């Protein structure tokens, strides 16, 4: 068996995953805090005002990391869904489903901060620009996954159906990312690059990276917690859960 699959199968055992999540989620959430705090402080107070936009651009330090997160989480959800559908690994079904609400949250924040920022920049809260429209579609996809998962009574069948939808919707991710290149739009083109020269002030990069790392850590932590809760609920009849419950009471 492929070692990656074997690892998933091992982690797929609910009690083992439970212990793993118990150990790591706390540390991940704790580790996220300093990054977020430092990033926010640096973005708000250390970085100079923009020569065109004044201080209003500082919303960038929320907007851009959460936009990145919305795409990243969708991609991750699709990967989990793929594994769940092909190899029927229970834990991956629940991981994919746990991604959806967090992703929807980041997408909503992106839309909200973007339109707050759009008001001073473009003079309107909303236009039907490709980047904006495709990000709105992303929100609908997240909501669709959540809705489908909630609408089917059997938990495993629900997760599989919703995971399938997530896989279909994955075509939207490149559209969001490349829309600024494929169409001429109001929205900013790619300004920050991993490789090569970014076209923004290098002092702005640091807080951005800090917040980006902070949100990733926080996401992983809450993903573990959510999946753990979902598994406990699903397996509430099983012995290992009863043992844990008894332990908590004692």
């Amino acid at each position, binding site marked *: 068996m492929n070692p990656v699959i074997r690892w998933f199968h091992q982690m797929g055992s609910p009690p083992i995953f439970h212990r793993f999540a118990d150990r790591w989620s706390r540390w991940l959430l704790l580790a996220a805090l300093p990054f977020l705090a430092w990033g926010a402080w640096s973005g708000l107070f250390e970085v100079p005002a923009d020569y065109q936009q004044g201080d209003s651009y500082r919303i960038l330090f929320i907007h851009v990391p959460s936009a990145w997160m919305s795409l990243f989480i969708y991609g991750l959800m699709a990967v989990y869904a793929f594994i769940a559908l092909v190899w029927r690994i229970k834990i991956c079904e629940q991981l994919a489903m746990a991604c959806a609400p967090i992703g929807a949250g980041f997408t909503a924040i992106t839309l909200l901060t973007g339109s707050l920022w759009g008001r001073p920049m473009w003079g309107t809260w909303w236009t039907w620009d490709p980047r904006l429209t495709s990000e709105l579609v992303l929100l609908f996809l997240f909501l*669709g996954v959540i809705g489908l998962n909630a609408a089917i009574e059997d938990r495993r069948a629900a997760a599989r159906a919703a995971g399938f*939808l997530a896989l279909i919707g994955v075509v939207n991710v490149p559209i969001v990312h490349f829309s600024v290149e494929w169409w001429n739009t109001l929205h900013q083109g790619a300004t920050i690059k991993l490789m090569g020269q970014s076209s923004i002030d290098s002092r702005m990069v640091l807080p951005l990276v800090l917040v980006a790392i902070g949100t990733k850590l926080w996401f992983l932590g809450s993903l573990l917690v959510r999946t753990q809760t979902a598994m406990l609920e699903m397996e509430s009849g099983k012995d290992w859960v009863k043992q844990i419950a008894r332990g908590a009471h004692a």
Partner: protein
Amino acid sequence: MVRHADASISTASACLALLRRDLLLVWRRRGDAAQPLMFALLVVSLFPLALGPEPELLAKIAPGVIWVAVLLSGLLSLDSLFRSDLDDGSLEQLMLAPQPLALLVACKVLVHWLASAVPVLLIVPLLAAFLNLDGRLLPVLWESLLLGTPLLSLVGTVVVALTVGMRRSGMLLALLALPLYVPVLIFGAGAVMAAAQGLPFAGALWLLGAALVLAVVLAPLAAATALRIAMP
């Protein structure tokens, strides 16, 4: 002595049997089948009433209104695609038949498109006349709908298949189908709007055509998979 399944029942003749049955059903239930047509007519004829009879304004928004009307009428008729088959047990029978489910699904989509979209396509000139659309735009509008409506039916089928087990799936269906419909609408109506402004529109139509070819191949497979996952 009981024989094994007669190997001579080819997939083609099974598809034909399904097509014949579904078309017969459309005919027997023609009151229901006329519903998308009525709905499209209704939406289109409400606009002149709501906006007042201002010919230029109506002509300007005509392609968009017609596209939205067609899209909504298709969306509302989607729900019935597998509903009656599920309720009376024939969906089970289809899934248990010794034939590729994807092909059977494709036949059902074809009938759905023939019954819900084609009648609307036929009255497009009437709808266009209601809204005062420039006659020269009619061919573009027609082509865009001819490419777009089967695409909508195909994409919608996947979504319906996913929600097949649910009693009241209306809203969820709309929520799930909308994101997938948006690009079709943008390119379809966009082509006509571009033509109206004298801009090139062939590109958008080509894109729709390419997407249609892709969907014809992939959507039945996806819908069959979705059915097997979501069958209650």
